């Protein structure tokens, strides 16, 4: 009797071309009907008047740190952070300790995931120990159910290894998610190479470090006829390369992180380590290009690169600070600015945060079609709120958005018909 009726909301379901006022009924954990008027019965009812009723949001790029770095985040706290942010499914990266490069680590994560608030999909490493040399136990992890493969945090610098990985992964229908960064070019740059790095006297990582790997990977993917996904695209050059590759039919997909289309390298001024991330925050013209990419579809989806760290890893010299920010709880709010600013329609945004990412990692979600698992997010598009890191459900507090006013928030997160978060 966990049935749930969501009434009067604006149902936005891009997978099925639905955008209008409907009632949505959930029975036995599944969507059972989407109709103009569904009678109340004796069910639990949510009145969603003025709200968006969307497929549960999906974030395919998070770092849940377990096993190995539980002090930063666990699968349990990460999933709670996801639920608050409106996400019903997440994929977590393999750079744990030990690395998720073999079946036993995958099994450990899947076991922890069973009791998590939202669906947690492990991503397997491409290479053993993320070393970029020997292939990880891809077949074994695939059989257990990893959602994709990635050495995220590190770029696969040896093109021959990437090629072998693409060919090998293609046997299992797995996509490789690349963290594009030519480490020989980016050196140990801790922010974008440009005016700000120069002013601050810090070593910068130029945009070309990301561009050249993106170009290389597109060539390899095109040759192997295999898919490649680009994580956290941050440069105008990459957006252009990906757009052109798509135009000629290469199997390329890409994600952008909210911080890369919301703020620039200027956030690093004052040696603000909460603005240190990889790839780094770039320039205004990069931000503009990413927003264009999201609106014209060159970039498929939004992913937060949720990367919680402990305070002691950020309250250090800028050079020595850890890369990354807490992403799940601000992702939707920051992305809603694209709708409020007229860059994306509500349907396009929901698509980029549910249906599209589901397709990239091949999970059967991101739709409100009757019969589908009832993962639903109810969004109040007009709700104004202020980012307060002390209230994060994540263990991390590292964000450059503290105190920022955002408009739009998930007010109900529903997983398999069950409300896992509400505000």
């Amino acid at each position: 009797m966990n049935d749930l009726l969501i009434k009067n909301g604006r149902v936005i379901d891009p997978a099925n071309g639905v955008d209008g006022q409907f009632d949505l009924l959930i029975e036995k954990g599944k969507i059972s009907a989407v109709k103009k008027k569904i009678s109340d019965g004796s069910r639990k009812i949510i009145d969603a008047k003025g709200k968006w009723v969307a497929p549960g949001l999906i974030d395919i790029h998070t770092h849940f740190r377990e096993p190995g770095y539980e002090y930063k985040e666990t699968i349990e706290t990460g999933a709670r952070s996801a639920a608050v942010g409106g996400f019903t499914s997440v994929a977590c990266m393999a750079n744990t300790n030990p690395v998720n490069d073999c079946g036993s680590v995958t099994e450990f994560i899947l076991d922890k995931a069973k009791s998590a608030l939202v669906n947690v999909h492990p991503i397997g490493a491409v290479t053993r120990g993320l070393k970029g040399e020997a292939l990880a136990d891809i077949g074994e992890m695939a059989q257990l159910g990893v959602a994709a493969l990635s050495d995220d945090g590190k770029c696969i610098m040896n093109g021959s290894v990437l090629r072998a990985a693409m060919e090998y992964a293609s046997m299992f229908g797995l996509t490789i998610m690349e963290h594009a960064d030519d480490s020989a070019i980016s050196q140990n740059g801790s922010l974008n190479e440009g005016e700000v790095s120069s002013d601050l006297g810090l070593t910068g990582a130029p945009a070309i470090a990301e561009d050249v790997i993106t170009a290389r990977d597109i060539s390899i993917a095109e040759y192997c006829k295999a898919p490649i996904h680009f994580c956290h695209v941050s440069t105008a050059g990459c957006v252009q390369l990906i757009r052109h590759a798509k135009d000629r039919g290469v199997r390329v997909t890409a994600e952008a992180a909210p911080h890369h289309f919301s703020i620039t390298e200027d956030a690093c001024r004052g040696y603000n380590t909460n603005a240190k991330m990889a790839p780094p925050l770039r320039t205004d013209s990069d931000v503009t290009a990413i927003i264009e990419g999201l609106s014209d579809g060159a970039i498929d989806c939004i992913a937060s690169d949720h990367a919680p760290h402990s305070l002691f890893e950020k309250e250090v010299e800028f050079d020595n600070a850890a890369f990354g920010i807490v992403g799940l709880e601000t992702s939707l709010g920051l992305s809603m600015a694209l709708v409020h600013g007229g860059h994306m329609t509500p349907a396009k945004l929901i698509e980029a945060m549910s249906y599209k990412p589901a397709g990239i990692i091949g999970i059967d979600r991101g739709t409100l079609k009757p019969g589908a698992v009832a993962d639903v997010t109810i969004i109040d598009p007009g709700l104004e709120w202020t980012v307060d890191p002390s209230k994060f459900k994540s263990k991390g507090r590292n964000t450059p958005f503290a105190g920022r006013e955002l408009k739009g928030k998930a007010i109900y997160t529903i997983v398999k018909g069950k409300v896992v978060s509400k505000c």
Partner: protein
Amino acid sequence: MAEQDLYHRHLISMTDLSSSDIGQIIETAKVMKAISERDVKKTPTLRGRTVINFFTEPSTRTRTSFEIAGKRLSADVINISAAGSSLSKGESLKDMVYNLDAMKPDMLVVRSGFAGVPSMMTEWIECPVVNAGDGRHEHPSQCLLDLMTIQEKKERLEGLKVSIIGDILNSRVAKSNMIAMRKVGMSVTACGPATLLPVNIEKIADKVTSSLDEAVDGADVIMALRVQTERLERIGFPNVREYSKLFGLGLERMKKAKKEALVLHPGPINQGVEISPEVAEGPWSVILDQVTNGVAVRMAILYLLLGGGLQINE
């Protein structure tokens, strides 16, 4: 039997042989096999002929097989290996072959780690050259002994379905077999990790799959290839354990195969990697028949290329 009419001077590639050439070699090999089953395993057919086995890549079984083949036909067989040859003292390959040519051999059997060496040698020497395996290119005598074994057991070649499993990219055995098998009307399924299939695989095989179950299902002939870890230039698979899980021919997999399917392996076997001992020694296995037939096929090759004529039937 008819006077030899194999008009080829050399045996370099299966692309050079027609379906009827292949049939002729197999038929001749069957006669040769009978010689190996006698008490006195020798005929004077090639008496006074000199055969040089020129092996610049280590090989025990192929060299031994050619050596025995030559000796059973009464040829004088000389073995030269890379380590003991003047190649190791910096002499060029061409000079070495010129020198051998000056000694008037009747046949040169060549094994090289480099593709194309036997073919180049045909330009530098008067006598017939037999390719005993060159790099990742071809291994015609192995292919012919495979075909002979299949023909012997199945009493036909045409119409049979064969699945070749494993490192097809690096296998000269697979290469020769795919060429020849399709010539004689067999249909070839190539199965292996996507990383170990050549780029033009769709053109050289009738069917391509990375599912072993699919490859085994309905096959008349299953050929497992050696995992050549020493030859892997790219990283083709994560580790031996995962390879054997995905592509290892074990009893469980053989349940999907036809009861009367044949299992072949060019050897040497990595037990428990590409094939389990239960299968290698099981009822499907013709692996030792392949070795026996190897001698017969090589006798046939020497005989036909050296024009042994009618003496064989005396």
